């Protein structure tokens, strides 16, 4: 007996000392972190470490659709047209100027002279033609974005002279220039593509401010300064490293200890502690996204429009925003954010009203409610920092109107695949715009053409489809906006989604970072970033 008591006492002391040692380490780590972070403390140069949640799937932007990849390729490649610094207005990129023919079918682009690829070869009209021919030759599996944005539209791309390219289109494509500015259409070095063949996605060569050095999968991607970059004085950093740290809180810790300099996917609950820390600062990405709960229009009770509307009334969006987005979001009523031209502000939102929801369910014959699956994504997304928590809040909202939801989650790739083929009843998803055009939200996410693709709710409405196609084939902006506004009214009535929020994703970094401008599309150009200390 005595022995055992002594043993337990010792064990207790031991546990206590481990706990105390842990505390010690923590504060010690913070201090050294501040110092080691100041390594590249001069006004420019040094290494910038960017911590993010997932690894790239490819370093050839043309063959991927996934945002983590574009974050890196945005800094290796350049596009013919650029987006504005923090908006999606079109600006000169590798093309200095452009001209459109009267019928809108011919576009002539004048290219920048004296630009070189990282492998020393020249950037010219031939290189542009080579890239477009390459994308055109592949199928939708290979070059998804080319096929969805330009597939049947671009008839011919030809080099008029060394620095002039002419595009001939089959039909008018309203967002033609905005599409050209999208990351997947970064111009690659023809020599490198020929040389590396299948392995090109691991050996990217572009004209951008940084050159590729090394890719350790699921760990880090290293880029170095492109000394011959055509813009004088850029980039500021000598080296950029993208590090993968999947867990939000672990990434936050890495920033605290100085292991990384900038992180994305910051938990909104951490914002307060970042702001109170003089060594750190927060950044907000301008909102170009929507998070929604998709209602599969082909499954069970959800086939009934009244049920879908009822569920729309059941969800308390404002409470979700206050709790999980720290207020840095707006409740959504349309499938696209306000900043997109064509947003219909006259749409009456479904206000939070459980009684109305119950009444509608009763009308639809589900007075006693029903059981349903509620899918929640397993990973933090820019538009949805914590899917499982939001799902739990919605689960409770549904329960209040008599709908019993079971929360289901799969590994991310499986989750996307299963929702794509229509296995989910209701599912959390979202979208970050690629080019800020209404077409890129409405047509991509809700047109019947895109069932089995990005139309996860499997929503089909011929009337809406006609509006979308009409809007695609005119260059008259006012007319397009009118068509999209009309479509939003119809979509609201059919309720294939519960639009949840448009959020401003939070990022955080060291306090001495300047020149970091988070881009609404989610891929940030790091050329102007520097440490001021």
């Amino acid at each position: 007996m005595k022995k055992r008591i002594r043993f337990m006492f010792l064990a207790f002391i031991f546990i206590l000392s481990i706990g105390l040692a842990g505390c010690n380490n923590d504060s010690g780590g913070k201090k050294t972190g501040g110092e080691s972070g100041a390594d590249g403390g001069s006004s420019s140069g040094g290494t910038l470490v960017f911590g993010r949640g997932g690894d790239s799937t490819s370093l050839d932007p043309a063959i991927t659709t996934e945002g983590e990849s574009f974050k890196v390729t945005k800094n290796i490649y350049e596009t013919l047209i650029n987006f504005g610094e923090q908006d999606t207005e079109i600006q000169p990129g590798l093309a200095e100027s452009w001209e459109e023919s009267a019928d809108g079918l011919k576009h002539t682009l004048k290219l920048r002279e004296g630009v070189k690829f990282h492998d020393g070869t020249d950037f010219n009209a031939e290189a542009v033609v080579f890239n477009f021919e390459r994308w055109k030759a592949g199928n939708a599996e290979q070059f998804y974005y080319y096929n969805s944005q330009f597939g049947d539209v671009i008839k011919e791309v030809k080099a008029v002279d060394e620095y002039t390219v002419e595009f001939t289109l089959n039909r008018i494509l309203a967002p033609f220039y905005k599409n050209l500015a999208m990351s997947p259409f970064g111009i690659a070095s023809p020599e490198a593509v020929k040389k590396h063949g299948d392995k090109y996605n691991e050996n990217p060569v572009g004209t951008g401010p940084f050159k590729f050095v090394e890719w350790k999968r699921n760990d880090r991607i290293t880029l170095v300064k492109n000394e011959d970059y055509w813009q004088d004085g850029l980039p500021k950093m000598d080296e950029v490293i993208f590090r993968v740290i999947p867990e939000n809180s672990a990434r936050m810790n890495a920033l605290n200890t100085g292991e990384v300099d900038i992180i994305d996917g910051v938990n909104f609950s951490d914002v307060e502690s970042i702001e109170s820390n003089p060594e750190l600062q927060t950044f907000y990405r301008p909102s170009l996204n929507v998070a929604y709960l998709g209602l599969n229009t082909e499954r069970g009770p959800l086939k009934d429009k009244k049920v879908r509307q009822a569920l729309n009334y059941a969800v308390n969006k404002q409470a979700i925003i206050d709790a999980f987005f720290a207020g840095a979001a707006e409740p959504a009523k349309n499938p696209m954010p306000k900043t997109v031209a064509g947003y219909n502000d006259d749409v009456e939102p479904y206000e939070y009203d459980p009684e109305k929801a119950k009444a509608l369910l009763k009308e639809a014959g589900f007075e006693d409610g029903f059981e349903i699956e509620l899918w929640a994504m397993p990973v933090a997304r820019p538009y949805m920092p914590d899917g499982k928590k939001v799902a739990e809040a919605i689960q409770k909202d549904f329960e209040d109107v008599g709908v019993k939801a079971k929360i289901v989650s799969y590994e991310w790739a499986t989750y996307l695949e299963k929702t794509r083929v229509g296995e989910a009843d209701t599912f959390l998803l979202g979208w970050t715009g690629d080019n800020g055009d209404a077409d890129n939200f409405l047509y991509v996410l809700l047109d019947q053409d895109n069932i089995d693709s990005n139309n996860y709710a499997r929503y089909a409405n011929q009337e809406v489809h006609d509006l979308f196609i009409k809007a695609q084939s005119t260059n008259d902006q006012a007319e397009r906006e009118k068509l999209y506004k009309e479509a939003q009214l119809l979509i609201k009535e059919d309720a294939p989604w519960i639009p949840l929020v448009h959020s401003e994703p939070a990022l955080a970094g060291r306090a001495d970072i300047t020149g970091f401008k988070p881009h609404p599309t989610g891929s940030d150009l790091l050329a102007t970033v520097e440490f001021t200390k």
Partner: protein
Amino acid sequence: MEISTQKQMPPAVQAEEKVASPWAEAWYSFKKNKLAVIGMMIVLFFILLAIFAPVIAPEGINDQKLDARLQAPSADHWFGTDDFGRDIFSRVVFGARISLWVGTFAVMGSIVIGCLLGILAGYYGKWIDAVISRAFDIMLAFPSILLAIAIVSVLGPSLQNALIAIAVINIPNFGRLIRSRVLSVKEEEYIMAARAVGMKDSRILFQHILPNSMAPIIVQGTLAIATAIIEAAALGFLGLGAEAPNPEWGKMLADAKQFMIQAPWTMIFPGIAIMLTVLGFNLMGDGMRDALDPRMKS
């Protein structure tokens, strides 16, 4: 020396006079072990908590108040609130139901199946023994939590499947224990006698061998409940156990870990609950082993 032996004599004699059955004798020595009694009281406390949860808990398990998130412990919310504004005290109290339910039934499941297999292996021997014993060896070669994760991933994550997984991984422990008991008991003379008078195998097994092997099973079972509760919490923590919004303690820990710094009470109370129940079962199990093991009585 002489004095001390003399002093020890009277209680022994007394015990022999008063105590009728070996179980009562065990209870007598269990009672003398203070730590064991404390353990039993902790266990009883949690059992009562589980039974009377609806009476004790001031709120339901999923009464969300999103405007009262992460509130520190106060008179209204003894253990504070979590990130959905739910009362943590209520959730911990209801969580006792889940943990005790999983612990008890998982262990009962493994006892039943483990005993059957162990008896078969021990009594019949030969190839049956070889097959069953090697199967146990294989199962014991896996780290138990890994095996549980594998089973849950196959069956799909839910509380019930976590229970099944925990039951399965504990089978070989009981199987081996009972097999070794059977091996020694079946050579006893009274078994020989039973066989000599032509008693059927099944009767020998279930009326003589099994009851005589029960003591170590009870001890092992009590200790195994503690492990099972920890395993259930681990699975819950990994997102493979209870589903939202069930207040399983391990899951509560997982949900709370991002608020560890700003709202430590979201982790501390479920953590303490796990620690106390497991400690209770362990102390009680230790005491029972001391009380029931004849070798410890000298």
